Each structure stands twice: as structure tokens, then as C-alpha cells.
């Protein structure tokens, strides 16, 4: 099993290394069997959801633009145009508050590429 594990890591590592988004998506979630997903850090929430589009060719770059936190919260809950809307059951109110502040203050990530 250990040999297979190393092999699997070797197979996935190059792809994960390609973007900053993948790096934040691969941050640990800390979920344990039989337990609900613990509250995620803003970086993990961003990497698991936002960064797959914003920073990976699909949506506009967000990091480093110092967008107002309230604006970010509205966009997440309402979605705009092609962007999905995210429900409190997906991104909890506490996660959203922390995420909005984090995006608002985050520096640009040079590994992101967007439209």
C-alpha cells in the first residue's frame, strides 16, 4: 500500500504544481470520518471553490485588487452572470465573512492567470 501511495503522489504532483489555485485547493481540510467538514480557512475555501475559476482562465482575477468585503459577500451569495451562487449550506456565514476579508486584503498571486 505504501508503494502505491508514493506512486499516486508522483502521478498527481506535477498537475498540482501547475497553479497557485491547485496549491491552495490542496491545503488540508482536516475532515475526519463520520464528522462534518470543519470550518475551512479562507485560503482553503478560496482554493476549493473560487480559485478554480478566478485564476484558472475562467473568471476575473480577484486577489490583489482589494475589492470591498461586502461586494465579495454579495457576489458569492448572488452569483453574477456565469458565476454560480453559493448557499450558506456550501459556504457557511462564518466562512464567507472570513473569505471576504481574506480576498479583500490578499496580495496578487503571480501564479494565477485569468480573463
Amino acid at each position, binding site marked *: 500500500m505504501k508503494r502505491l501511495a508514493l506512486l499516486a503522489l508522483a502521478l498527481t504532483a506535477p*498537475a498540482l504544481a501547475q497553479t497557485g489555485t491547485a496549491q491552495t485547493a490542496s491545503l488540508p*481540510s482536516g475532515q475526519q470520518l463520520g464528522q462534518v467538514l470543519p470550518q475551512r480557512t479562507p485560503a482553503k475555501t478560496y482554493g476549493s471553490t473560487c480559485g478554480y475559476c478566478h485564476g484558472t482562465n475562467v473568471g476575473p482575477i480577484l486577489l490583489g485588487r482589494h475589492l470591498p468585503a461586502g461586494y465579495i459577500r454579495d457576489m458569492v451569495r448572488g452569483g453574477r452572470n456565469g458565476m454560480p451562487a453559493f448557499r450558506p449550506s456550501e459556504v457557511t456565514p462564518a466562512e464567507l465573512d472570513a473569505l471576504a476579508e481574506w480576498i479583500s486584503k490578499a496580495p496578487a498571486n503571480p501564479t494565477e492567470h485569468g480573463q
Partner: protein
Amino acid sequence: MNGPQIDRRGLLGAGVMAAASVGIAGTAMGQGAVLAPGVSQADLAAALKAFRAVVGDEWVAGDAATLKPWSKSYTPDPSGRHAPVGAVCPANVEQVQALLKIANQYRQPLWPVSTGKNMGYGATTTAAPGQVVLDLKRMNRIISVDTELCTALVEPGVTYQQLRDYLDEHNIPLWIDVPTVGPIVGPVGNTLDRGVGYTPYGEHFMVQCGMEVVLANGDILKTGMGSTKNPSAWQAFKWGYGPYLDGIFTQSNFGVVTKMGLWLMPAPPVYKPLVVRHKHMADVARIVDAMRPLRIAGVVPNVVLMMGAAYQVAMFHRRGEVSDGAGQISDDDIGKFAASHDLGMWNTYIALYGTPAQVAESERIVRGAFAAIDGEVMTQEQMTGNPWFHHHATLMRGGLSLEEVGLARWKGAGGGLAWFAPVAPAKGSETQGQIDLAKQILAKYGFDYTAAFAVGMRELHHIIALLYDKADPAEEKRADACYRELVTGFGDRGWASYRTGVHAMDLVAAQYGDTNRAVNAAIKQALDPNHILAPGKSGIA
């Protein structure tokens, strides 16, 4: 068939009549949504109040502002009849049981969703008016992972991202198999909608094993081996004893699935993605005929996508970059743009998995098959830097990506997307007629042919992305009419859809005939006599 008579035809009409007699649910209850047949505003208000007592105030939505994320939709809904009137988010099975009891008391229909991100099929909007979304996303426990049997048991709110994270964090060398929007959707919802992914485990219902289902009366059914005294084989043996029941809980409204088992693929020693490029649209038939024996024999073990150039281009580019014309984009225009971006008119993505010797032998066979039909077989090394190859190479190893969300901005800013997915046998003779018909209907309404074929074990899914500008009300109306003509036009030729969005469920059900609908209606009446679970789902009232 004798049995209860359900007025299916009147389902949507009844909703509109209810709006007329009882009133629009009001700005407080969804955006233009109407109440369910036979449910008064007082019933809805009482049900929402009772729901709050079960899950807490913060997990019930019942006004336009808080309902906004549940009302977001990509599918055509020109009259606003698919918006929900409320949402409730249980945390566990006991709360689901309590909510169903209340729904029965007030006859308030509930529309269950797992992760609610079935973009292009309706997301969390509902097939018939007046429903409260039963949002199971908070139920996101990974119950078990068996590293010897390579199985998992998960709740409906578990996303593929969560499952991938759990496996990685515990150094478990198992792959997952994802649809195109893997990070924000999950195994339960995708499997229940009979969705697919792109590894050898891509036929998701085939690798599903065991369910826990809360029935409308609150009883809990465990399918397969799950109800025996020692259910240790619950995720190992699909069939159990007696009639196989799992199927009736997919694409249906007969129960609320609260746990589901699935099989996971061991990470292979070697993974080799390939793309086969063809230069002409007319190559479609011979690609399918070349691929069929390779799929049936298992030489190509994964669900194969034959991506049309326009679909590929629409992922990463906007329509205006290709054409400024209002009518359907021509094959010539698409072909030139595709060629300049290292794409063929057909881009067929396959992958090989196994030991070095197995992969080498399979590659030899594949190269032989496609050399005979002028296919250009390209490897990862040859396609370095090509974003389309990277995307599909990611999918075919169960990797996570949301790049296909880019489709939603192809035409205008409005984010309109509806999947049309007719099924045919995997024969080349079934392809060109479909393409001609699709192009003709789409052109009539001013839409592009952005499509792919997925080659399964014996069948061919034609996957057409109807891309439109949802911000333009006239275009949304045209998209709705276009989709309906696609369903009926293809249905008349024997190409019925395997899946559809909330906007066309009754219409697609009609393609499958009266006896099929009567059987479904009888099962519904037996299991959910008050019709409180998702009336209208798959055309079942």
C-alpha cells in the same frame, strides 16, 4: 394499468391556477414563484415555521433576499415558474425525517438537492412551482472508506473535493471519478442523476453500491445488503436479494437518499492520456466506428469524450473572438479558429491505465485503429501547454477542475446554459443525422452547435450545450423554445434524452410513453401518497 390516476398533464397548469386563485407567493417568497397546487400561503408559512423549529432559524430561507442563492439558474425559465418558494437545510437524517413529517402535514412539497450545483440542468430550482428546496449540503460526512475493498460511504453533501482531500490527507492511493464541475458537486447527486465521469469508473451508477433512503413516511430503507444483520457487504455487493431497488431512487422522487456507497479505483502504476485529432466534421461516423470495438473490448477503458471544436473553443474563448455574425457560427469559422489553437474539428480524448506493458500494448492497438482513419494521435508531451489537453488529462485521472464553467459566458454576459443529451447506440450511422438535425434546430433560433459525443460501453451520448444570453429576456424565450424543439425533434427520430433540466422534465418523460409513465406514477402513489417529494421530477407528479 389500473391504479391511482394522477393528473400529470395538469401539474404545471395547476400551479399557475393556484397562483391565480391564491396569489403569487409574493416578493417575500421567491422571485415570481407561485404556490404548489392545494397549498395556501398560510400552509407554506406554517410549514416554514415548523421547519425552523427543527433546523434552527438560520437554516431556513423564505424570502426573496435569502432565497437568492437557491434561485440562481442557468436553464431557461422565461416565466419564473421554477424558482423555489423556500429552502431548508437539515444537518442529519433525524432532521430529514422530521421535515418530511411536517411536509406531509401541510402538503408542502420539498425538492431534495445534494450539492445543488447541477449547472445546466437546473441547480436548486424546481420542476414544478411552489416547492421548498430540501438542501442536503450540510450533511457532508464521509462515513467510511475501506482501503482494502476500495469503497466509500458518503452523505449527499460530500463534494468530490472533500473526498479527494480526505484520501490525500490520509495517504490513501485511490482515485475518484469526477464530472466536469467536480470541486463543487458530489458523488451522491451526480450518481442519482446518472451522471458520468471520464476514468474507467466513469459510469457512476455502475460503481454505486448501497443506499440509505428516507421514504416519504419517514421510514429508513437500506438497499442491497444494508438491511441484513451484518451489513459488512453493504458496499461490496450491489444486488442484495429480491428486486433490485437502487435504480428507482435515481432520477426519481420516490425517496430522499441520505447515504450512498461507491467504488473507488486504485491509482494505476501508469496513466497515459491521449488525444486523437480529426480535421473534418464528417469524420464523426468513422471515429465512433473505430472507437466502439476498443470500448467494448476494454482496450480503451474510460468514458471517451469526442469534443467538437466549437465546444472546446467555448470553454476558453468568447463568441466574439470567432465571429461577429448573429447567425449560427459556420464550421469554416470554427475550424479556422480551432486550427490556430492546435485543435481538430473533433478532439477525442482517451486514456490508458495499467502496468507499463499493458499501456504500451493498448497504445499500439489504439494507434493502429486511428492510423487507419487518418486520426492524429497526440501524447501529453506533444500537447504541453495546450489548455484543452491539460483539462481533459485532468478529468481522465479524476482530477478537479471548473474550467467548463467558462461555457456560460460564450454568448453574452447572462450565463445561459442548458444541456441537451440524447442517447443513441454507438454506431457511426447514428451520428451525422443527429448533427444535421441539431444544427438545423439550433440555427432556426440563432444558436451555435457547441457539442460533443461521449462513447460509453455500447451507447453514444450526444452532449449539446445550448448556450444563450440569459440576461436577454427575448433570447431566454428563444432558448426555451429551441430546447423544446430539440427534445421533440430528436424524440421523433428515436433519440430520446437520458437526462434533462427542470425546465423540460415532463416533455422528456413524454418521449418514453404512457406505460412507462403509468408505472412510475403507481410507484409514486405507493411510496409518497401525498406527493410531497419533488413533484415534477422526471415528469413524475
